């Protein structure tokens, strides 16, 4: 087998050195009756060429050739070939957690740079590297707030990504957290009045997303003030990081939970992505996840190490701030490379293109008879529209034109069953936007 670096003769030599007569002797500790007699029923062995053609065949059964207007937490953005060039260097790809700092300075310095970039983006003072994804990062942020405040109630905006809310609920169930949801108002932002009303001194955290699931930017200051006033922490989730190229960082937040997928990671049917938790220096000892810190070596040279590990499971076990061990390091590296490439101007320009394209799409779609904006709030690259008939039906017709249409909100918000979420990024061409609008118009012009 091509992955195994041993010849039959070498196996014999090694067995002889051990003093075993056969390889089976080495498995004698497994009770005989449990040892498999037959070969596993698995497809293969496949040569490299066969492996590739298996996956190419599967790829051909997917969505190639379709234009998509889906976002909802996973975004199509330009990626540079440079990112994979770096990721595929064996020195990064096939290294593990930098436990031995002397021979993992590459990974450590890159993590330190990631942390810095995340702080700059979020307006926070410390960021970890990394969590599984945006949803678990949000949950971990809430658990962190619980530890910090010693309180158990959590107020969550309904405009937080529905899947993030579900994950939070799964974790909350057994940790004594009480999760309550707060609605949205006409402009699509959180219902601040309701939020304030619910805010008591037993609230650990208020959780918002911005831009929220409807694509609408939240105004954080008032919520932050209210939360702080009652001793709660403000947790802000960022599902579309590119928005931070044009919008203010959530500096008012006490904890930010971010999904870094937009930074150079392909959609990849659900993962791997990278979650981030960022917060204040003073809260660092309650942070989950890994942190690299700057230090000096025996000769006084700058270097980096994993630090504050006393928060982590391998030291603290049942008292750890989280159970996370393997994280999404390579995805964090992808984000680091990608954001370094984009830089200040590149990210700003990308964000502004998203804004402009979304506004362009919105302006075309709004003109279609029967179609209107669901919410009046400020949007970035996603917006919610109300259609005169079910989004499902419209999407079925769009599919025939090789267009993947808006995400139907009905399954997540029963009250929004005719509403759909449209996403337009810098990768969506004007022609595609125009064809989309024309097709929707044509579909709607036909009787349902």
């Amino acid at each position: 087998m091509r992955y195994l670096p041993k010849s039959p003769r070498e196996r014999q030599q090694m067995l002889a050195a051990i003093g075993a007569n056969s390889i089976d002797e080495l498995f004698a500790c497994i009770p005989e009756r449990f040892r498999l007699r037959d070969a596993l029923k698995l497809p293969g062995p496949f040569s490299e060429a066969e492996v590739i053609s298996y996956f190419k065949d599967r790829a051909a059964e997917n969505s190639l050739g379709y234009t998509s207007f889906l976002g909802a937490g996973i975004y199509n953005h330009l990626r540079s070939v440079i990112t994979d060039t770096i990721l595929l260097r064996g020195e990064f790809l096939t290294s593990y957690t930098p436990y031995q700092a002397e021979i993992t300075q590459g990974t450590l310095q890159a993590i330190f740079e990631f942390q810095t970039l995340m702080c700059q983006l979020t307006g926070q003072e410390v960021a970890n590297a990394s969590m599984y994804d945006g949803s678990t990062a949000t949950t971990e942020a809430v658990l962190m707030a619980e530890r910090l405040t010693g309180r158990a109630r959590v107020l969550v905006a309904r405009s937080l990504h529905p899947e993030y809310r579900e994950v939070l609920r799964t974790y909350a169930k057994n940790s004594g957290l009480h999760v309550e949801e707060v609605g949205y108002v006409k402009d699509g932002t959180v219902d601040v009045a309701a939020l304030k009303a619910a805010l008591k001194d037993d609230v650990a955290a208020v959780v918002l997303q911005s831009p929220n699931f409807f694509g609408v930017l939240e105004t954080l200051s008032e919520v932050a003030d209210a939360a702080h006033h009652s001793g709660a922490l403000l947790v802000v989730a960022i599902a579309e990081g590119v928005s931070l190229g044009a919008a203010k960082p959530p500096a008012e937040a006490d904890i930010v939970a971010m999904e870094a997928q937009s930074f150079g990671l392909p959609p990849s049917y659900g993962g791997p992505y990278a979650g981030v938790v960022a917060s204040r220096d003073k809260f660092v000892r309650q942070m989950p996840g890994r942190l690299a810190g700057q230090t000096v070596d025996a000769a006084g040279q700058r270097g980096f190490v994993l630090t504050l590990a006393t928060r982590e499971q391998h030291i603290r076990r049942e008292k750890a701030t989280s159970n996370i061990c393997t994280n999404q390091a390579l995805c964090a590296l992808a984000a680091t490379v990608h954001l370094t490439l984009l830089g200040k101007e590149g990210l700003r320009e990308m964000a502004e293109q998203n804004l402009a394209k979304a506004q362009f799409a919105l302006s075309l779609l709004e003109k279609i008879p029967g179609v209107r904006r669901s919410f009046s709030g400020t949007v970035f690259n996603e917006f919610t529209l109300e259609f005169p008939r079910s989004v499902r039906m419209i999407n079925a017709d769009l599919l025939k034109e090789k267009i993947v249409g808006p995400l139907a909100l009905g399954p997540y918000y029963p009250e929004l069953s005719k509403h759909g979420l449209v996403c337009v990024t810098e990768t969506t061409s004007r022609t595609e936007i125009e064809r989309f609008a024309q097709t929707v118009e044509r579909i709607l012009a036909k009787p349902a």
Partner: protein
Amino acid sequence: MTDQIKKATRHTNQNEGLIFERSSPGKRAFELPPLDVPALDSAKSLGAHHRANGVEGFPEVSEIEVIRHFTRLSTWNYAIDLGMYPLGSCTMKYNPRVNEFVARLDGIATEHPYQPQELSQGCLKILQLLENCLLEITGMDAITLQPAAGAHGELTGLLLIRAYLEKQGNPRKKVLIPDSAHGTNPATAVIAGYEVENIKSESHGQIDVDKLRDFVTEDVAALMITNPSTLGIFEERIPEIAEILHAKGALLYMDGANMNALTGVTRPGDLGVDVMHLNLHKTFSTPHGGGGPGAGPVAMKKILEPFRPIPILVEKDGGRLALETVRPSSIGKVRAFGGNFGVLVRALAYILAYGPGVRQATEDAVLNANYIRKHLEGVFDLPYSLPSMHEVVFSDAIQKRNGINTMDIAKRLIDYGFHPYTTAFPLIVPGALMIEPTESESKEECDLFIQAMISIAEEAAANPDVVKSAPHTTRVRRLDETAAARKPILRWMPAATTSSAAG
């Protein structure tokens, strides 16, 4: 450097500061195609109170500087692609390159998790085939591929147990965890809402089955067992252990981190395990990438199936595959979207490459560990002498007499051209040297490792200082971890630049 070092030589490589220190306004490393719709005044469309003018402090560099920066950094890393990485419990095996290729294919990497399922049949078939392969390998009845890593799988598994027990009327209070377990086990149990009861291993490093009987009360939800244990030892009495638990209505959770010792040879499902996770980034070769991503599928017996996290993959009439989200008994979602699909793709590619021959990988892994054990027994103290499977755990007891501990030996091993073994655990071995070579090491590489270890043992006796002050060949050495933790510097700030020396 001593002549003993056959495996590595020093060679000059490039320094590199932080990328922020290269920034100069106006440099660009990335350009966008021109905007093809009317430009907007973003200040106007976002409104002054939302709008920012770019991210303060973000670097401004050129493409070649990005390439050089990360290429230079990469050369400071050790990696499997460079040599043996016997980090015990981490299964640092070869990460096949074809896996990276297929995971990046158009039509694989490009797929959106919310796209219509009729446009996702290729993805769903991949998931289905991987599920079937892992069920065959584990001997279990049902599986979820969603957990993002081992610890996440542990949590999912315990939540399944909890949901099952709740359904029986009582989620119970405690999870039993042997003292040899990985730190994630107890950390996870707490998140799942359980108290942890640590149970001591018997003198051979195994579960003390007789004592276990006393521990297993009606309060116990489960025992989390690692098999082979973190000592690399097969828990011989595992079927009996399962019976003890089952008799009291408790379940047996198996941490499958060490499945590289068992794949194709025996199946946890046959051994009485109720639920287990797999680490695809260990046993199934997906790259560790400096710490992740991984995937921690959870395989289970039929009784737990109703509680699986949503979405659930089902096959409809005519073979059409679908993901279903409505499952009343489900524990809910453990993460957004369907899982680390890209990692799952790689794991399937690995399995397809081996087919049933995956057993040979297991055999070679066990062969390597025993070969190393044979040559190092006596040179290093072997606190537990039961047969080793995929890894062998020594202690530094012999070297301690000269004031040399496992970390010193580990650091010295760096000079010899190896990544060190695991030093941090199992906690039941003070000063552990936890060595897992995996099947990916040739006899030649194992021999070099053995020679290096013997040579270090000799140095520890004859010239302990050279070991204590190691490594001697790296760019930086013995970084001050205490200072790092006392006054943490966790991000770059412009002020810091001027005072700090170049990296």
